[in-house]
């Protein structure tokens, strides 16, 4: 691999990977989930699963990318064998399907950033902009803007990603810290802190709290998505794996905690009476309908509103970049040049993201289907690592020369035993919940169990049928064959 295809420094890798991990889920989902699941008790379970799901899987992803130097499909083929290419295909498909609608979400953030900068949000009634904008052709336009930004960065390869991450991620951290400090210094903010941190120990006996905490880790830290694997392709040869994985896991959750403090302190300081309505308004309702109203009520709120949407835009765009790079890398592995690959990926993203831009129902459906699909991705990583040999992976890759920490056999147990149990439990729990009630098996119903199973079945059957093609095409074999024949 040439120098140009490597991160220039460890900090470039760490910042890019943090950019991947810190997304809108840290800012708009974490505060809501912690508020509706027992506050302090939830935080205990959330920290536990950082260590029992996120970090161990991040170590697997880093080691797959570093050892194989290939994207998701090639990495699964090289690490676990040709029969596992379809699993890599699933990982790539899931992240790419999420990229299609995530670009729409990034577009929303850009639109609200523009509206907060221009002062448009200052006099709007609550939800006024959202009602006229969400699902409109303007949302398709902002989706195109977000996609264009992502394409422009990935066009320049890993050095482009590194340069952008070095500006946006420190900027994001600074903005979130400023917003959290502003929130805790508002009169009445102590009630928000009390609500966030007071534990309800009885809740720790409820299975739901633990499953919500595991879900939050699965969705907002990014392990099992294949994105860390993709960035790990560009690690330097003598680069550490375990310390980087811990650093990114803790860094990501540090941002979530700051976001929780920022949102809940602002809510309790400005409008404590409406806290249940605010927390229960969903991700979009909280962010795009309530937050502008709350910021308007605090001194210099206009400035803090700009900071909030700027932070959200930074988080969304850096995550979008990693998803674009994942799909681009899979095409590069199959012999397509980077610039052609990113244009294909970006074009597909524009096209297949458009329905989500025009309909919140479509977006909700895709978020549901592929969000749960990520749990299957996590399971596939565990199975592929087992096939490679967990002890071998630990000794030869994770703890190899350059590692700053040595990972013990606890990691083998977590990845080999706990992760599969967690993944299967989560999938059953989410699908079981969706299966209650009328129309739950209807594949055309947006939030049903039936739509998940139908779309998964189509994808899995297609990937299994294409397994041989994927294994040959995306693991570098075809290119090696072409070189041999050409010679």
């Amino acid at each position, binding site marked *: 691999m040439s120098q140009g295809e490597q991160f220039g420094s460890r900090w470039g890798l760490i910042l890019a990977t943090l950019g991947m991990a810190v997304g809108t889920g840290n800012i708009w989902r974490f505060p809501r989930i912690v508020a509706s699941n027992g506050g302090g008790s939830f935080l205990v379970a959330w920290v536990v699963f950082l260590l029992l799901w996120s970090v161990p899987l991040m170590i697997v992803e880093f080691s797959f990318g570093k050892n194989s130097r290939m994207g998701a499909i090639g990495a699964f083929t090289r690490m676990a064998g040709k029969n596992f290419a379809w699993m890599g295909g699933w990982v790539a498909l899931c992240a790419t399907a999420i990229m299609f609608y995530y670009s729409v979400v990034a577009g929303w953030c850009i639109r609200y950033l523009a509206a907060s900068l221009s002062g448009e949000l200052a006099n709007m009634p609550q939800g006024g902009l959202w009602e006229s904008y969400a699902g409109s052709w303007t949302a398709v336009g902002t989706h195109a803007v977000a996609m264009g930004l992502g394409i422009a960065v990935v066009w320049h390869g890993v050095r482009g990603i590194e340069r952008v991450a070095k500006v946006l991620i420190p900027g994001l951290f600074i903005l979130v810290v400023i917003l959290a400090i502003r929130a805790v210094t508002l009169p009445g903010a102590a009630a928000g*802190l*009390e609500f966030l941190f007071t534990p309800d120990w009885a809740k720790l006996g409820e299975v739901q709290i633990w499953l919500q905490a595991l879900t939050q880790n699965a969705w907002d830290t990014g392990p099992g998505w294949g994105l860390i694997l993709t960035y790990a392709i560009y690690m330097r040869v003598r680069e550490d794996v375990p310390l980087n994985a811990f650093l990114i896991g803790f860094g990501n959750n540090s941002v979530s905690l700051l976001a929780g403090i920022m949102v809940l302190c602002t809510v309790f300081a400005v409008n404590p009476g409406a806290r249940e309505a605010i927390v229960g308004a969903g991700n979009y309702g909280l962010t795009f309908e309530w937050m502008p109203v709350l910021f308007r009520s605090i001194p210099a709120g206009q400035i803090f509103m700009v900071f909030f949407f700027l932070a959200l835009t930074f988080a969304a765009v850096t995550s979008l970049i990693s998803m674009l790079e994942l799909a681009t890398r899979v095409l590069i592995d199959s012999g397509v040049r980077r610039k052609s690959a990113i244009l294909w990926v970006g074009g597909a993203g524009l096209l297949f993201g458009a329905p989500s831009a025009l309909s919140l129902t479509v977006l909700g459906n895709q978020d549901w289907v592929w969000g749960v699909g990520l749990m299957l991705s996590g399971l596939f990583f565990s199975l592929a690592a087992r096939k490679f040999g967990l002890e071998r992976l630990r000794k030869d890759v994770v703890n190899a020369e350059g590692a700053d920490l040595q990972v013990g056999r606890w990691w083998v147990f977590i990845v080999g035993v706990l992760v599969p149990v967690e993944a299967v439990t989560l999938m059953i729990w989410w699908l079981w919940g969706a299966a209650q009630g009328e129309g739950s098996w209807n594949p055309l119903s947006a939030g049903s169990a039936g739509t998940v199973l139908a779309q998964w079945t189509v994808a899995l059957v297609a990937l299994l049928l294409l397994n041989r093609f994927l294994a040959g095409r995306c693991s570098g074999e075809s290119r090696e064959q072409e070189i041999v024949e050409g010679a």
Partner: protein
Amino acid sequence: MNSTALVMMIVVCGAVWGGFAVLLIRALRSESAKKKETG
């Protein structure tokens, strides 16, 4: 703020932010040691 919430805040923020800070310092030291070795 009640004392349980205060203790919990110190424990959770200490574990998450403190953990992040310690790991960051460890990585910084390691990078500086590696640079000395190669430089």
